[in-house]
């Protein structure tokens, strides 16, 4: 009982409750016949928003105004470049991954350089950067659709022990980010910066170094997502990142991380990502169109943020 009440205080639990409820409702509607396929699809597709969402969450942890709008462009560029570079050869798989990560690294550094040295607010800095990155992707892509290496394509679309491989990768990355956020010095630092940047500075935290590292991490995670997504869907498309702009922010908000920064959690990203995909499939199963789905998503985000804004009590 005690454990249960403790659990109910965790902000992320509600996203799981909601996801489970919707999963159940959808299963019931189809009379249980879709249980396996629905679960598989949900885990597979949620994995991508989890990977991007993790990075976005770290950036949002940094406090008000911090957000990375360049993730869609980063996903696209990374997917495009990696696939073209690998050119369908199995031997180049690792090189492709490394290049993807390098792309994320560079974009992250450039993003923070704009924020810090040109004093551009993060939202516009990352936006301008996304324009440039998107152009690079268009220029590099030239409308070609290169197939991913055979081994990589089959890896990203298959399962191990009944779990989709993409979900397994998302799990490992989540564990890494969880350790970083919950157990490491770095996690304490960015949480401190997000709560009160001035106080963090006066507690001797290297504020700029931490923020740079966070933006780089976010871009690298987006780049990894782009690499996987392109391999999974059999080729890079120029609009492949587009839906992850709003999705990455939405999963952070719904997952119970504080929008004002300083307090984030990894499980919530999972709950929210599963939930978001399940809402889509449920509405599809019930025959609702994209319109209702979008409205629902929007209303959910707004109700979550309004509910979370209640005067914070002494206990949390």
């Amino acid at each position, binding site marked *: 009982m005690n454990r249960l009440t403790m659990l109910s205080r965790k902000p992320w639990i509600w996203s799981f409750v909601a996801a489970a409820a919707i999963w159940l409702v959808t299963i019931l509607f189809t009379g249980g016949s879709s249980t396996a396929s629905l679960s598989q699809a949900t885990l597979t597709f949620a994995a991508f928003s989890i990977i991007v969402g993790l990075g976005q969450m770290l950036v949002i942890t940094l406090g008000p105004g911090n957000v990375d709008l360049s993730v869609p462009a980063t996903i696209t560029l990374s997917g495009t470049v990696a696939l073209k570079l690998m050119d369908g050869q199995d031997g180049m798989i690792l090189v492709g991954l490394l290049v993807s990560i390098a792309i994320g690294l560079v974009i992250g550094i450039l993003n923070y350089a704009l924020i810090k040295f040109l004093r551009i607010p993060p939202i516009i800095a990352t936006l301008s950067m996304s324009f440039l990155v998107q152009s690079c992707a268009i220029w590099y892509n030239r409308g070609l659709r290169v197939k991913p290496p055979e081994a990589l394509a089959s890896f990203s679309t298959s399962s191990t022990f009944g779990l989709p491989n993409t979900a397994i990768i998302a799990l490992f990355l989540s564990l890494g980010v969880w*350790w970083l956020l919950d*157990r*490491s*010095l*770095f996690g*304490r*630092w960015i*949480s*401190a910066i997000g*709560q*009160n940047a*001035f*106080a*963090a*500075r*006066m*507690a*001797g*935290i*290297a*504020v*700029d*170094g931490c923020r*740079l590292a966070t933006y780089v991490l976010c871009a690298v995670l987006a780049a990894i997502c782009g690499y996987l997504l392109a391999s999974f869907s059999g080729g890079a498309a120029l609009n492949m990142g587009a839906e992850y702009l709003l999705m990455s922010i939405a999963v952070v908000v719904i997952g119970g991380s*504080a929008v004002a920064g*300083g*307090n984030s959690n990894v499980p919530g990203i999972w709950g929210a990502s599963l939930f978001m995909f399940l809402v889509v499939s449920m509405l599809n199963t019930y025959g609702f169109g994209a319109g209702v789905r979008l409205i629902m998503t929007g209303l959910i985000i707004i109700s979550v943020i309004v509910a979370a804004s209640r005067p914070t009590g*002494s*206990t*949390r």
Partner: protein
Amino acid sequence: MSQTEAVVSIRQVRVEFGAVKALDGVDFAIGRGEAVGLVGHNGAGKSTIVNVINGGLSPHQGEILYEGRTGSGIATARAHGVRCVFQELSLCPNLTVVENTRLMHSGLSGLGWRRRAAKLIRDSLDTIFPGHGIDCFAVVGSLSIAERQMVEIAINFLGVSEPPKLVILDEPTSSLDAGLAEQLMAHVRRFVAGGGSVLLISHILGEILSTSSRIVVMKDGRVVTSRPAAEFSVRSLVEAMGSVVKETTRAVRATALTAEKVIDLPAVKGAGIPFYARKGEIVGLAGLGGHGQTTTLLHLFAESSSRWLPSTDKQMAFVAGDRALNGTFPLWSILRNLSIGNLAAFARRASIDRDREAAHGEDWKAKMGIRTPDMNNPILSLSGGNQQKVLFARALAGEARIVLMDDPMRGVDIGTKQEVYATLRREAEQGRTFIWYSTEIDEVRLCDRVYVFRDGIIVAELEGDAITEDNILATSFSGEAA
């Protein structure tokens, strides 16, 4: 003076902020055609009285009468012709002078308000500061600090339908040069002669003496003296502000006068006195609030730590006074708020050892006497004094050899204070250096050596027995008119 004559009078007003009595049963009145000078050291209750009169703060006890009728709230105060020039600038920097005038005076409605507002503010500026040269259509943000202050004063002195009855000036000359300050004071005298009333607060005693018709001296939330200005001199004013209680003897400590200097800075702006601190010394920063003490501390800290790389050994630690501004992390537990100062010590390969962190927390909970059943409770569940102890523990737990303190005892109860003082002494004996900005004379007198700040520079250095209330007051207030 009868109550009906008074523009504003307050009776038996009490205001408390937590344990601190900001106003302790104050009677105060300003009559028509009177210029009242209000003086007192930090925490005497000057700003609180201003906020009570302008309606921004409702007292816990007592009543306020505007022109003989009780009332409360900003709207009532404004309706009775009370205007206030605040210490911090309160104009909108993105609007023009004329637009700010419009914002402040709701009476300026209807078509053509721009023209009317321009005429009013220009006339007001011309009257108060002849030859000011301020363009009324310029954006306030493009004006110099002095010009902004002039505009704010002029806006508050002008009347749309009828002139203001009482203008409160809280340190109005802090960014004006001597010539402008003299123009303002001349205007105050004219305004008062014409039947208006002024409440003047200033750290420049010359101004107070030459402009006021009556001077009110406050101390510890009470009015201690209220007499015609003519009966005061600079010297007697300073004495009146001082403590009535006989000075207690200082605990004299054998300071290592020969110990190495850990901080050594040249004088700021080529004026004032150079700054240094020795190992194991408690150096006080005194003077009126906001005269450069906090800036000095922030500057010292910024020099000592990197913004880009995690520092391996920290030279300085900082204890905040304004906890919400730069002290506490509101979402965190007590333990995390404490351990952040020395986190690297419990880390193994960048990973935090939570057991060692908890042990560290219990250790300092006992050492500082932090009153809480559980160090995992949120920091905001603690009283102000206990939060402050956590911040002290954060600074003392680390390796830092120099501790900077930004008036950390603000609003802390006396028991906590005594505990912390004892800790400070002990740590100083062991070779730690403390740079301590305090607004309380009693605390400043605990220091080995004291620098007094005025207008951003160090104007005096007091040592040993020279650290007396009289000396600090005399140097904090400027005798001459700027």
